[in-house]
């Protein structure tokens, strides 16, 4: 009773409910509203300005990054840059583009189905096992990516005695899995319980409801979540350090490798690769949003 006691009036006191008292209170409120309106409007405007400034501060580095990458990388771009394999004299980055694609394909093949089934399990079962899986997924999303790289090295490269894109895909898949699980589960939670109950009450099996109602309803969120996790994984470098046979087999490694060399040609290649990578990630993100938007639109 903070508000009440601090005013020094006993709690049980009944205020004057007479017509005159009501009229008096009404006048007081109206006066307060009118006298404070200028202050309230000024506060509102000030907050709007602060929001605008915050947006500008947040967007500036992003725009600067894109401008820098485009202006420094555009010079390296050519059809040959995309289609030719690297040579000691320069050449293109075709092996890196193909390699990155391969790695991502392996990662998707591992993480997307696993992520879906794990998320379904978390959605369907509320118990100790589910909550410990959820907890470990949360912890896993925070594991530094270099540690995942070392893990992949230990369980794959050491055992089979060679570096490969499969090992890199495994590392990326492990990295993306917890993000996908959590995104999928969140998307499934947006499907209302009413719909789930409607499905069950029609005599459908849980698995059928999971497929036709829950998964279908969550699809826009699932697609967006997976593609965004993918976009995040494509840009990772650390998990590939210990798993890929040569820096020329992955775009991020190529950037890392060439950018740290003293030769202007290598640095030019690094900027060009960065631009290609940035463009691909942008395409992925836009695709994710477009698909989600289209799926959402179909239900209206």
């Amino acid at each position, binding site marked *: 009773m903070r*508000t009440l006691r601090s005013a020094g009036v006993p709690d049980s006191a009944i205020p004057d409910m007479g017509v005159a008292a009501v009229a008096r209170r009404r006048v007081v409120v109206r006066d307060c509203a009118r006298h404070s*309106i200028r202050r309230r409007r000024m506060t509102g405007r000030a907050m709007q300005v602060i929001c605008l400034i915050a947006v500008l501060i947040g967007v500036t580095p992003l725009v600067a990054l894109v401008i820098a990458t485009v202006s420094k990388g555009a010079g390296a771009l050519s059809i040959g840059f995309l289609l030719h394999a690297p040579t000691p004299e320069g050449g293109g980055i075709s092996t890196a583009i193909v390699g990155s694609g391969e790695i991502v394909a392996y990662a998707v093949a591992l993480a997307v189905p696993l992520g879906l089934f794990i998320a379904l399990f978390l959605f369907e079962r509320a118990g100790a096992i589910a909550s410990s899986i959820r907890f470990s997924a949360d912890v896993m999303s925070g594991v530094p990516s270099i540690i995942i790289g070392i893990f992949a090295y230990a369980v794959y490269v050491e055992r089979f005695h060679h570096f490969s894109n499969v090992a890199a895909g495994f590392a990326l898949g492990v990295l993306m899995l917890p993000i996908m699980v959590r995104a999928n589960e969140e998307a499934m939670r947006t499907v209302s319980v009413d719909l789930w109950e409607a499905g069950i009450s029609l005599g459908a099996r849980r698995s059928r409801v999971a497929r036709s109602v829950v998964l279908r309803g969550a699809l826009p969120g699932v697609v967006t979540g997976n593609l965004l996790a993918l976009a995040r994984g494509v840009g990772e470098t650390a998990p590939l350090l210990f798993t890929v046979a040569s820096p020329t087999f992955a775009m991020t490694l190529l950037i890392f490798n060439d950018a740290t060399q003293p030769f202007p040609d290598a640095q030019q290649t690094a900027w060009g690769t960065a631009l290609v990578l940035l463009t691909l990630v942008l395409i992925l993100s836009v695709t994710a949003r477009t698909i989600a938007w289209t799926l959402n639109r179909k239900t209206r």
Partner: protein
Amino acid sequence: MKRHDANTDQNLSDASNRRAHVDNRTALLARETRTPAERPGPGPYGTAVTLEDVSITFGDHVAVRNVTLEMPARQVTALVGPSGCGKTSVLRAINRLHDHTGGAVRGSVRLGSLEVYGPDVLPEVLRSRIGMVFQRPNPFPTMSIFDNVISGLRFNGVRNKRLLREMGIAALHNAALWDIVKDRLHQPALRLSGGQQQRLCIARALAIEPEVLLMDEPCSALDPVATAKIEDLIRHLSGEVTIALVTHNMFQAARVSDNVAVFLLGEDRVGELVEVGPTDQVFDTPNDARTKAYVTGHVG
């Protein structure tokens, strides 16, 4: 007649100019706000709300057309009719909620003699004179019961603790909720039952001592017992506050209202006001054949 902010804001080139303008507007409102919104007209206390040839459109869609209606002060006016015939749109035009939903209001809406859509009206100050209760109870979930009640006062710049306390308690008494919540004023509002939550929302609306209370199907989410309590409350409040009650329950309209306005869909699917008058007359001897069919339960 939509928003006039754009025109008036052009004149506000500098701060002092703006201050002078706000003062001007508040001075204009001062005359209006010190006394309840009433002007001579039918009914023992005159007329509180006047709608003259009001049409409301959302984009291309005309929701309701050519409504002319007077709501006698300190009486209950029920707006009845089937779904989609514009009752709620009319209600929301009175406190300018359409400013935020993209609805365009044409015609004249007056609170007392104040032109609601006049160029000098500040919507915030206008709304501080009009309470509103929605279909589903919507207490602020993060606030305690008592903080909910006094939130409108706080939003309007009332800071005096003693006054907040007095007006909050008065509002709880007015909403017949005091005895139920007096021992748990600082518990979260969501711990109340649905009917109690709705009465809390009424208390919240009453705390600013509104001259007009807009109620948009306030019982549609409640059970019969809770509904009966809200109806008792409406009867109790009439005589002090002008109430505009949207309902699709003809029995409720018959039980609690002094006047009825019947809305029906016209032939081109646009809402129309077909009959308005004292409740007894509209129900016993309706002038319009369509009204007769509707109130006797043959249609709708």
